[in-house]
């Protein structure tokens, strides 16, 4: 290395940073190991497995959206095809007694995703922007419709099922119990996260960012943006295939819903809500959206409404997603200015929560009146009892919404001011990021 580079180039991270970095990964491994000891019920394990699958799927989607700037409406195609091939593979391996244990089946899904991405990607990635989005939409509709027509392969709308325990055993595990599936998914999730993280730190990964920022200029530093988009598409397809195969292993069934628009929409949601600008964003989003979609429908019958309102709120107030919102605080923490903002947070929290509570109260009472008229007016929503026929409830809802809003708005303005001051103070100390 030249003397100049050691002076000008970004320094290699010191040992302490590297320890922190590897410590983080080690911590993640440890967490994944102990998680099932803390939460051992069947549905907790299922939830964790689904979160892991969703993490891989969302990260693969972010290779397209966050890193290469490609908005896809059809990413589930590669997820689904990976799932179908995995199911067929399990059946075939089981029937022919091939010496392939279950943990390697996700690789088959990945290769399937890769294969179809290689096949369909070249024409899809010729253009970026809306044209790409619309092609992905068209292709997704075509494949999803074909899934219902080609019954032998896709099993019609009933799908294809398999028995994952019929494969040769590895370490004497038959992968029947959910806990074993959890460890399988956890291991693959770790592998996939490491692989996709490593990918962002390669020349190709950086050129993806360059294509996202400015495809025109990329051409004038020697790269063909189409090739970069295509490669990114293939990688995304590969990891989506792995996720699909894991889902197929988890459910022991693959059907047309894997390929559908809803699945493609969900991954777009998770990724964006988590934050496309950060590697960790989709992970946060996957955890959040999976838990939300699994539990919200138990809490209220109009979960779709809350879901919709929540997404509207996120895209309006937190364009960087949840991660973006958290990362905003980094300069403040580094500059030691967080303490000056915190009180304002607490102050605005009270009326904001009041407003949200009022909104929920209003919605739930309204729902009760329109959906279940004439039933017991004492209902329980979000674990709180109240009487919907009492005018007091209506009044309380109204007061909470209107009063909460006006007070909250005042506190938000104060909060924004405090925030700006704190940020300026932090910047002056030289912590801009």
């Amino acid at each position: 290395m030249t003397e100049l580079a050691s002076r000008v180039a970004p320094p290699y991270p010191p040992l302490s940073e590297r320890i922190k970095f590897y410590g983080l990964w080690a911590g993640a491994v440890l967490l994944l190991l102990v998680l099932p000891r803390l939460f051992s019920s069947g549905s907790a394990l299922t939830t964790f497995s689904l979160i892991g699958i969703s993490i891989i799927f969302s990260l693969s989607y972010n290779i397209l959206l966050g890193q290469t700037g490609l908005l896809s409406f059809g990413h589930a195609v590669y997820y689904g095809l990976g799932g179908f091939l995995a199911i067929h593979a399990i059946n075939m391996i089981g029937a022919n007694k091939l010496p392939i244990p279950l943990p390697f089946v996700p690789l088959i899904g990945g290769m399937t995703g890769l294969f179809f991405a290689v096949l369909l990607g070249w024409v899809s990635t010729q253009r970026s922007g809306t044209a790409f989005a619309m092609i992905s939409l068209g292709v997704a509709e075509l494949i999803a419709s074909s899934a219902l027509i080609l019954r032998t392969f896709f099993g019609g709308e009933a799908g294809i099922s398999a028995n994952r325990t019929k494969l040769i055993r590895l370490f004497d595990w038959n992968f029947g119990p959910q806990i074993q599936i959890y460890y399988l998914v956890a291991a693959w999730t770790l592998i996939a996260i490491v692989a996709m993280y490593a990918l962002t730190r390669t020349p190709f990964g950086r050129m993806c960012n360059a294509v996202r920022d400015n495809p025109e200029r990329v051409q004038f530093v020697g790269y063909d943006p189409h090739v970069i988009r295509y490669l990114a598409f293939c990688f995304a397809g590969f990891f989506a295939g792995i996720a699909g195969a894991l889902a197929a292993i988890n459910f022991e069934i693959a059907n047309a819903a894997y390929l559908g628009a809803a699945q493609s929409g969900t991954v777009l949601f998770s990724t964006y809500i988590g934050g496309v600008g950060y590697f960790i964003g989709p992970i946060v989003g996957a955890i959040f959206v999976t838990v939300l979609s699994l539990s919200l429908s138990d809490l209220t019958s109009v979960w779709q409404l809350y879901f919709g309102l929540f997404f509207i709120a996120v895209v309006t107030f937190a364009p960087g997603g949840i991660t973006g919102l958290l990362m905003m605080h980094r300069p403040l923490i580094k500059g030691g200015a967080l303490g000056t903002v915190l009180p304002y947070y607490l102050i605005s929290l009270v009326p904001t929560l009041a407003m949200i509570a009022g909104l929920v109260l209003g919605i739930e009472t309204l729902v009760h009146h329109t959906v279940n008229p004439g039933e017991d007016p004492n209902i329980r929503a979000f674990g709180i009892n109240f009487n919907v026929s009492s005018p007091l409830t209506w009044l309380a809802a109204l007061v909470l919404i209107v009063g909460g809003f006006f007070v909250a708005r005042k506190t938000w303005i104060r909060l924004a001011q405090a925030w700006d001051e704190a940020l300026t103070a932090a910047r002056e100390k030289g912590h801009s990021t």
Partner: protein
Amino acid sequence: MTAPAIEIKDVQKSFGNISIIRDLNLSVTQGERHALIGPNGAGKSTTFNLITGYIAPTSGTVKLRGEVISGLRPYQINRRGLSRSFQVTNVFANMSVWENLRCAVLWTAGHRYSFWKNIDHLPEVRDRTAEILADIGLATRRDVPAGLLTYAEQRALEIGITVAGGADVILLDEPTAGMSHAETERAVTLIRRLTEGRTLMIVEHDMSVVFGLADRISVLVYGHVIATGTPDQIRSDPKVREAYLGEEAA
């Protein structure tokens, strides 16, 4: 005798019925600094776009060191050793200055689309990027996102990206546009240093820059080169005086 760095022969370009470039003939010899001047709308940027493959000529050929490059895609031309900057700043706005320059170094360093190498562990890329960074004087701004740089800094980065790949034919499109006098002087020094030993073709409106920097000048009027020569020849060329300098004098 070596082939000219760039040779444009009988190039026509029309959009619909409007012909922008007519019978364009231009030759830039290797190692010279060649300025392309002309009134607004003469087709200077279009000429750059034709050379760099951004648009294809309706007819005629463009050669780079004797090889025909017209009809090739921009990245193919770039890989043959021709690089350009843009009139409007055109950097990777969300990436840091360091990342910007490194992206420009990768292809010629032979790393292409490689997805198996850690980008931080490529010593020759690191050295070359550091060199350019120091050259354009942005070492202290290394980690700032390009979109947050000042205008002059962005222009410097723009030139840095253009030369970072080591192309031996450099095209600069109005590199000093919108700069103050002092900034312009610094930019000219920078250009002079960075293009040492390479072929430079430059479009510029600032005549002091043109006449101070260029070995030869071509004058483009209505998509047609009306004169080519040394600064002195151009100064005294009556056609140029009439068509261009004459206008300014009047």
